[in-house]
């Protein structure tokens, strides 16, 4: 007979739990996202914390939806893969930034360290530059140890300073589709 430890499903990597728990502790009420392998454990944990999940059709729509939540007094988070940032730029640059709707973004990186798909590389390489050009600061998470600090800091920038800010989930964290 298997021990109770063996019969339990593997725990999610700590950083994914920490990021979700920190978002929830900072009052996040709803998560708008386009599905992604690395984001799924964060989303599952957010749901465990009672955060409403909204799987939407494209990243631009996620930003628009989150903008609506924000102007109505709620605390949304937007999660996307870096390849989706290109889809989201219009809503970020023409809605979230000029209306000063501080939105926390969680961006799962593709196209950088260890990327095998050439088509992912240009947008991955450009992600933080694109955000920075719009005045949005990005903060990398490369280990479990900084996940809470970075996530908490990004929510403070968003919800208190009214500035969009991004948590960048770097490849070193693992948890990707190709197991890297």
């Amino acid at each position, binding site marked *: 007979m298997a021990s109770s430890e063996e019969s339990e499903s593997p725990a999610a990597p700590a950083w994914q739990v920490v990021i979700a728990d920190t978002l929830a502790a900072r009052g996040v009420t*709803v998560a*708008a996202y386009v599905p992604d392998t690395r984001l799924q454990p964060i989303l599952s944990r957010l749901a465990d914390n009672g955060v*409403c999940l*909204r*799987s*939407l*059709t*494209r990243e*631009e*729509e*996620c*930003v*628009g*939806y*989150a*903008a*609506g*939540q*924000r*102007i*109505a*007094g*709620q605390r*949304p988070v937007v999660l996307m893969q870096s390849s989706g940032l290109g889809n989201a730029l*219009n*809503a970020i640059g*023409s*809605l979230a930034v*000029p*209306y*000063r*709707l501080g939105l926390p973004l969680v961006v799962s990186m593709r196209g950088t360290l260890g990327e095998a798909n050439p088509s992912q590389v240009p947008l991955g390489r450009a992600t933080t530059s694109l955000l920075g050009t719009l005045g949005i600061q990005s903060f990398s998470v490369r280990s479990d140890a900084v996940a809470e600090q970075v996530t908490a800091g990004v929510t403070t920038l968003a919800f208190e300073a009214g500035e969009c800010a991004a948590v960048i989930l770097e490849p070193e964290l693992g948890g990707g589709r190709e197991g890297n």
Partner: protein
Amino acid sequence: MKATDVALAIVDTYPTALCVSSLGTATSALRAASDDGPHFYLGAAMGSALATAMGVAEAVPGRLVVALLGDGELLMGASTLWSVSAYRPGNLVAVVLSDGGYNITGGQPLSAQPQFAAVAEALGGIAGARVQTEAALRTALRELGRPSLIEAELSERAWPGPSPFVDPARVQLAFAANAAGGTR
């Protein structure tokens, strides 16, 4: 029917609704009809207005939320109709100013007739209607189930008047105060 007639029908029928207008004609018409009321006027971000309205609707389920949209606007963000169908906020009404053209850029025609009401009906969970008169619009606003999508066919392309270039800071503050206070 002109764009301002559509906006007036909305604010007359639902004077305490939270409205979200897309860039261009919709924002100008809502400004004119509501005397610059505390609504959310988008100055750009074409294609995002219905998603924004859906976010508001789910954030404040006790208030009615009306999205006033250009037809080119909704064509650009049409996939949000699928999200509305998926999550079905019961306090969301979308009204499309249907004139078949991109007004603010000079009236260039849409390449196809969007058939938004028919699409909404086909998706399921959204009540759709296409109306040609103000009376029919007002009836649809009152009687359609929600979420709903009403295509209001415009017979005249007169520019509503006020500038669609709004001050984001002022818009945001006024809307936030409106959203935080009172109920429908």
